[in-house]
């Protein structure tokens, strides 16, 4: 099954592939992000309840969704790295973790900025908020662990193991936090009732989500290229490239 993948697992091939894809991905991501955000900010009517504050949705929801999507991408890479010992997968775990952490931080910050006008407080210990915070801690744990070893290989492998363990725990955390919150919270705080979104509001949101997705891939390309160079610096092809 992984036969056909094998040539793509060669670091040099991946390096050049990423180099070729990166400008396109980055361009597309920027274009879509600007399109979605400007549309969402300026060309849609305000929400009848939340007024213009709801426009934060165009960053909040893409970042929140992609913070989880990025974690699953990282966990898949980690699993491949551990089971099939594919080096490129191992390096992409480390390359992708900071992207996920930044997305999570964006979701948290925009959520807080949205919560202040809507709920009257920057932060409450609500289920979703808490599990997003824990997700940030998980990302930071992976980053901290990978940097704690004098041997880079060991760091990458151990971080992969932690990422896999984390993905097993993520649903448990999610479920338990959800359950914990509903026990303690009455209906005191606005629930995340899904706003029945008008299609005119939905389109820019979908475009922004796509933009975040492509941006993740673009950033991954940049970071993976660096990781490949760092780990393959003894190879002739890297030396030849650095020489000129």
């Amino acid at each position: 099954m992984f036969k056909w993948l094998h040539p793509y697992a060669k670091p040099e091939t991946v390096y050049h592939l990423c180099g070729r894809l990166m400008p396109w991905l980055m361009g597309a991501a920027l274009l879509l992000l600007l399109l979605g955000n400007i549309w969402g900010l300026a060309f849609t009517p305000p929400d009848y309840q939340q007024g213009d504050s709801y426009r934060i949705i165009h960053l909040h929801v893409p970042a929140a969704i992609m913070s989880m999507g990025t974690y699953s991408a990282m966990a898949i890479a980690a699993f491949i790295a551990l089971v099939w010992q594919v080096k490129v997968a191992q390096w992409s775990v480390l390359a992708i973790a900071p992207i996920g952490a930044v997305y999570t931080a964006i979701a948290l910050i925009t959520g807080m900025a949205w919560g202040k006008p809507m709920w009257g407080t920057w932060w409450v210990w609500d289920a979703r908020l808490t599990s997003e915070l824990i997700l940030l801690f998980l990302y930071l744990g992976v980053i901290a662990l990978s940097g704690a070893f004098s041997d880079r290989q060991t760091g990458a492998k151990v971080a992969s193991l932690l990422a896999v363990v984390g993905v097993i725990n993520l649903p448990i955390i999610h479920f338990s936090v959800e359950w914990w919150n509903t026990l303690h919270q009455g209906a005191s705080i606005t629930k995340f009732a899904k706003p029945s979104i008008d299609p005119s509001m939905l389109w820019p949101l979908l475009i922004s989500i796509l933009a975040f997705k492509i941006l993740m891939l673009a950033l991954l390309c940049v970071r993976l290229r660096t990781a490949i160079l760092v780990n393959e610096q003894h190879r002739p092809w890297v030396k030849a490239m650095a020489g000129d």
Partner: protein
Amino acid sequence: MVTLGPFLKRELRLLARQKADWLNPVLFFLIVLSLFPLGVGPEPNLLRIIAPGVIWIAALLSVLLAAERLFKDDYRNGVVEQLVASRQPLLAFVLAKLLANWLSTGLPLVLLSPLVALLLNVDMASFIAMVLTLLLGTPLLSLLSVLGAALTVSADKGGILLALLILPLYIPLLIFASAAMEAASMALPYHGQLAVMLAMLLFALALVPVAVTSALKINVS
């Protein structure tokens, strides 16, 4: 399959010889617990309300910090390396460590619980819930802490890195355990919470030893 016996005997002998390894965490638990009345104020009602959370947070930190040293000695003197080279006995070694860790840190916490109940003004119903959750929860604590210790054994960054990695994973346990104690204090049933904790424990019991052995292998190479 290598038998567990000699490995466990070795761990217990080491514990008997290095008493600080199990006395210190217990003392740490008690000191951290006694910080709360000092920091939060001595009102009995307030203490009773925060007791479940506080007990579990203190238990968590003390098991975690105790686990830090678990593999250190055997890593430094090359025992882990040689066991990894000979493959077979590694799992038995890990299981013995796990069991010894629980016996030396989890079990003392359970035994200490009457004292804790006194300190924090816990009523009878919550006390029973506390003992039950400690019995179910401390093995899970041990499992996760041992995993953390195995992950960081060659990292040389001290307990704080271990805590960073493992604390997020503890959160479900913390939530269910303190919820059970709270339910008990309100005379509500808490079978549900205990069942979930048992499920988590069994799940961890199946997966963690394998993860620990592979973490050790990675750290050695």
